[in-house]
């Protein structure tokens, strides 16, 4: 190895500086400031005063906060696992690699390019109670239509459908790429041993895909947990704050009710929950990296 690489001096600091500067200015400092704000009472044009954990206590007493926690919990879990099942099913039915497969994968990836705003537009159009094409199909099959403008649970169903539609390509790509990496011989061997398709999937594919599945699930949990535009543009959290998720609750506290203390407490609740979701993943990364570093 060259001397410069062995004794890089201040080089690592210099070259990582732009990345660290951005992270410090736009994530670390604001997050620390929010943490401080969460112990103060403050509003638009009003000086902050220290109130201890009062904001957190108020948050835990607010039934709309719990409503948003519950909605987030339901939406996130539905989205993550529906996506995973669909991604696994798709991986199982795709033809072997080749032109046909590439074309199909391209089409499946298309929703990845769609903005949440356009997604909401499509939902409003296709699920319009009076003239929407999906409402029409549902009626044709005798399924009662979704009254999502008045029924909170129906609106949340649409949020889940839209979110799955937008993000399934992400889950699919991770699972599918991992599946491509599995050695072909394993399947030959399993077939010679007389394993049928289900057994091959259950006993060969699934265990070997597990690491990729875990990564997909952890990342989708973290991203789905932030869900904002789908809900905001579809219902604004209504009717009567019944469809709020955590991000919408935070946004309203901050930019509609100007209760910065409550909004900051909500923000830190979100940070802590995010890290709890990712705890196992973070621990394994930490171990791998710092044990190797020594």
């Amino acid at each position, binding site marked *: 190895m060259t001397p410069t*690489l062995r004794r890089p001096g201040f*080089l690592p600091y210099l070259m*990582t500086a732009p990345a660290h500067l951005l*992270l410090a200015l736009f994530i670390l400092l604001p997050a620390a400031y929010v943490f401080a704000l969460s112990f103060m009472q403050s509003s638009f044009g009003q000086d902050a005063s220290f109130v201890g954990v009062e904001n957190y206590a108020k948050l835990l007493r607010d039934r709309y906060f719990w409503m948003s926690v519950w909605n987030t919990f339901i939406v996130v879990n539905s989205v993550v696992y529906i996506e995973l099942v669909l991604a696994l099913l798709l991986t199982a*039915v795709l033809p072997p690699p080749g032109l046909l497969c590439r074309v199909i994968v391209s089409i499946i990836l298309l929703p990845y390019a*769609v903005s949440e705003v356009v997604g909401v537009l499509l939902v409003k159009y296709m699920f319009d109670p009076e003239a929407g094409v999906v409402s*029409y199909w549902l009626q044709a099959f005798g399924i009662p239509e979704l009254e999502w403008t008045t029924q909170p649970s129906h609106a949340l169903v649409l949020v889940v459908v839209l979110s799955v539609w937008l993000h399934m390509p992400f889950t699919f790509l991770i699972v599918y790429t991992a599946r491509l990496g599995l050695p072909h011989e394993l399947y030959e061997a399993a077939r010679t041993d007389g394993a049928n398709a289900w057994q091959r999937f259950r006993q060969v594919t699934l265990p070997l895909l597990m690491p990729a599945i875990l990564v997909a699930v952890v990342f989708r949990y*973290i991203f789905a947990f932030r869900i904002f535009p789908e809900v905001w543009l579809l219902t604004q959290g209504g009717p009567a704050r019944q469809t709020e998720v955590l991000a919408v609750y935070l946004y309203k506290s901050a930019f509609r009710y100007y209760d910065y203390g409550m909004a900051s407490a909500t923000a830190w609740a979100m940070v802590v929950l995010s890290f709890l979701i990712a705890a196992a993943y973070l621990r394994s990364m930490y171990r791998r990296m710092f044990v190797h570093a020594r």
Partner: protein
Amino acid sequence: MRARSIRRRAVVCAKALGILIAILWSAFPIFLLLSSSIKRPVDIFAVPVKFVFDPTMDNYVRLWRDWPVFFESLLNSLIVTSGATLLTIAASALAGWVLSRCEGRYVTGSAFALIVLRLLPPIVITLPLFPVANLLGLNDSRILLVLLYATFFISLGTWIMKTSFDQIPRTLEEAAANDGASLRQTLQHVSMPLGVPGMIAAGVFVFIHAWNDYLFAFIFTTTRAKTAPVVLSEIMGSATGVDWGVLFAGASLQLLPIAIFVIIVQKYLIAGLTSGSIKG
């Protein structure tokens, strides 16, 4: 033997059906969007869906006439997206090289910080940033959006670059150094050119996100710096009633370029996701 062949045929049929459903699920809404943008208002809400109709460019004409701000917002989107992509690539390539080639506690700590900070929900930072941005005159500016999008994709970008540099043999850099090249020359003429595929992979994710993002653009822009998704949401929420034809025309113009882009860069998306999340 016959039972087996029937069963095999059933499996093939089931797979074909599954693929058909997947294609309809993914592409039909997008087809509806694009086709409705060239339909007359009466045809847009016709049920069942009209597949044969007189195409018209009226919606695009009305979009041009009634919503000139939409075309400004498309330009803003293009500028913000390009800026964020270039900044992410530059910062990630530099940091990714360090993560790949240097060792020590600082480097490991830096890599871990990148992972941890990536987990923070973006909406958390909007509240404290809003007054600060106001103070610095950065609200409603394209530069703020560039910085924000880059910040949230630097972590993924750096990990993609690290993996990319890991695959380039160090001997190439050592050979350049032995020939008397300075470190800067080695980086400029050997390492970075070899890292270009990684840079593309690092760039596509932030490009797609910045083009489509609603949250930051919604909170941090008011008039001058509005991006296309924000203006689309305004057309959708029009107080005077929604002109669906115009809305579909605008949405088509916003979606079509990025959809084509996603198909073209598919290979890099796959490469980026494998190196960015599975190994990282």
